[in-house]
């Protein structure tokens, strides 16, 4: 430390390299406006949007570029349920466990999903395809029970419909893989 007191430039360059350019630019924009530190949560949303989760490397980079203590960044990332600190599957299955869905039998849908996928909440299938998560309400209670897979919300899901539903996404993943090849 004492020999080289100012390695700011070096650290900054390293932090910039750890993040996609649009997020680096975004942080730059925030700093021009009042209260830049208030954009921490929005920034973490962007990072998670890009990588699917918040890795330590990226959180440190955000801390550095936004000039917010790393402890504070971790504090925020762990406080909010929406943020994930570990990688997740290609499709995130979000089962609503809100009141409306609960009284309409969401617990049974959960059982079926766990059985079919062989995983518990917070886990990812071995093939990396699905992660199972619970949500406290997706705002489509009128269609309960509701399950969100990726960006699609599915209403009126019964245990019987689960296998076919999963099949759609397995096929989707397959065709996506083909496309990328």
């Amino acid at each position, binding site marked *: 430390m004492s020999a080289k007191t100012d390695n700011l430039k070096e650290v900054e360059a390293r932090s910039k390299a750890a993040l996609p350019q649009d997020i680096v630019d975004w942080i730059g924009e925030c700093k021009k406006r009042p209260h830049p530190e*208030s954009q921490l949560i*929005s920034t973490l*949303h962007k990072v998670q949007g890009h990588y699917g989760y918040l890795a330590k490397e990226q959180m440190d980079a955000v801390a550095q570029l936004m000039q917010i203590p790393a402890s504070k960044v971790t504090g*925020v990332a762990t406080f909010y349920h929406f943020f994930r600190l570990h990688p997740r599957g290609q499709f995130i299955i979000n089962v609503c466990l809100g009141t409306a869905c609960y009284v309409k039998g969401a617990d049974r849908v959960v059982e079926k999903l766990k059985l079919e996928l062989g995983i518990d909440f917070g886990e990812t299938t071995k093939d990396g395809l699905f992660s199972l998560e619970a949500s*406290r309400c*997706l705002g*489509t*209670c*009128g269609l309960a029970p509701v399950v969100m897979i990726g960006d699609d919300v*599915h209403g009126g899901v019964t245990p019987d419909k689960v296998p076919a539903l999963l099949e759609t996404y397995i096929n989707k993943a397959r065709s996506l893989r083909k496309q990328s090849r």
Partner: protein
Amino acid sequence: MSNPGLATYTGLAKKAESILDDRRESGKIRIQVGSATCEHAAGSNAVYEEFRRHIEASGRDDIILRRTGCTGRCSREPIVGVMVPGHLPVKYQLVDHDTAHDIFTSHILGGKPVTEKILDGSADESVQYEIMLCSGERCGRNKHLNLTKLFEKNLPKTALELGQVRLVSANCFGLCPSGGKGSAGHALIRPDNVLYHIENENDIREIIDNHILKGNVVERLRKHTEAISQRFFDMYGDVAFFNKQSRTALRNAGVINPEDIYEYIHYNGFEALARVLEKGDPQWVIEKITASKLRGRGGGGYPTGMKWANARKTTEETRYIICNADEGDPGAFMDRSMLESDPFSIVEGMIIGGYAIGASHGFFYIRAEYPLAIKRIEHAIDECRKLGLLGDNILGTGFSFDLEIRLGAGAFVCGEETALIHSIEGLRGQPRIRPPYPSQSGLWGKPTVINNVETFANVPAVLLYGSEWFRNIGTEKSGGTKVFALAGKVNHTGLVEVPMGTTLREVVFDIGGGVPNGKKLKAVQTGGPAGGCIPEKFLDTEVDFDTLAQVDSIMGSGGMIILDEDDCIVDIARFFIAFSQDESCGKCTPCREGTKRMLEILERITGGTGTPADLVKLERLATLVKKSSLCGLGRAAPNPVLSTLKQFRAEYEAHVFDKKCPAKKCSALIKYEIDPNKCVGCTLCAKNCPVPCISGVRRELHVIDQAKCIKCGRCFEVCRFDAVQRL
């Protein structure tokens, strides 16, 4: 010197008119498809695509396809409206790919509506005129002028019998005569969209003779102020689910395209703002809002005018206004629907609020779980900036104000005002002790007003139609309507907007259609995790902030979950405590530890190991947590327990003393057995058992291995011979 606000606005309105005229062109057929998270979940995107393909293939240029938000008729989505000029609009329900095809070929091309898919109870093509009669609180309770009877008496018998004319009674049009109850009534003639003010039987005769029989509008009786719900009723008035409602906050839901600012302007959008700016007196706005008796729709019911006045009184000149769109109550979706279906009205409400309290900056705090709502609000803000409705010098009046969106990140406690402020500041969303209240010291230490989405949606309506009008719709202490999100064990799930003071029974049975499958209603859960369960005997309670508190629940933000005889009240209490425990921010001990201990006790009771002493402990702990927690989350978390302990004590006692779950829900207290006399050996149960633990061969008695059974109830559901019993 007069302000150019109104003049600039008139310019905008003219522009909107000409843009829409170009687009609409009279004589064109319009197909509208709902577009909101719920509509998409039900499959409306595919339906939209199907219509688009058909229109393209037909090569016709007289068919317009458009999107609207959602109407709040969740259980019948996707909903599609078809408007053929000169005919009543036809609404279809549960439209899928095939239905879309049928609608296009039969209705659009062939002129014959697909009758079997028409949305519940609405008119079909044989109806020429529909006469909608206001039977709201003021018009409808008129002993001397029973409009329905008088119309029936004077209409030619054949017209009614042949179904050419339909009489429909609707809830308050929002045009209540100022001359007190019963001085006059209102009738809306569809599809002509003409509204009449009726004072006596002669008026009725004149309307029938001239308008209904000859098609000539009776100008003498015509009302020229458009009723707030008129455009909604014009589109949906024949649908039973809707005409018992009174649409103020949801006035544009399912009517306008939420991504088109010109449509909003066309329906008087931003006129309230223009008038306010023209007047140039923030104090006047606050007085209007105060006089309207608008109370916060986020749950607390704090008078909005008073909140604004508190902020305005402060000496600090930088002030902020925030829209609380964190909609945390699980089972509530009013705010989502409003944000998605009518985003401009909320933006307008916020600009007016900002002006009233003297803020130049506002924030939307939207939960991240609502991506479409976020997108629509973003779009609305951009559009407003383009037209000079946000930013510097709004409408040329010198008033500057801008809005920004901040996202939540899945913490329920962030709906609490001080936690929400911390979250916007980029911190962990933990509440702090109040006072100071945010209206004195909030965001970055500045005076801050936080209001709910629905509160803001009502603001333009109050200013456009007047405080007296708004106050008249509601009750003595609380003006206007309330939107409820009806879900759970009810036939028609969806959004219901009714005047304050409507009874729970009307909401659940008349509009919601009661409990499905012939089951009995057990309770109406209101207020979510902060509320309680209202038993059947209190269904005649008139909804309002104070009345619901009297029956040990709260109004809350509008979530209303219907529970039936299959729902265990103790399990529901456990559900909510588990929720609050999970969402407790952990800052204060009573809430952090208390909810955990309460949950343990409730788990013991539902698990069959509860003792009588547990009931005493539970009640004591609940009272303690309620009294000593720091914020509203902890203070309200015990409510579901206290309410059910009071209203449904016998059910707790059955679990504790008799080790029985009367609703047969708690799996530790039930078992499944196969009745040897009824089982025919069809093997269906064995095939469906997930364990599997049912043995038996085809055509012989099947038996459940009790040691292995996880009591999932599948066998009970699938057996077609009633052989599986739940004991």
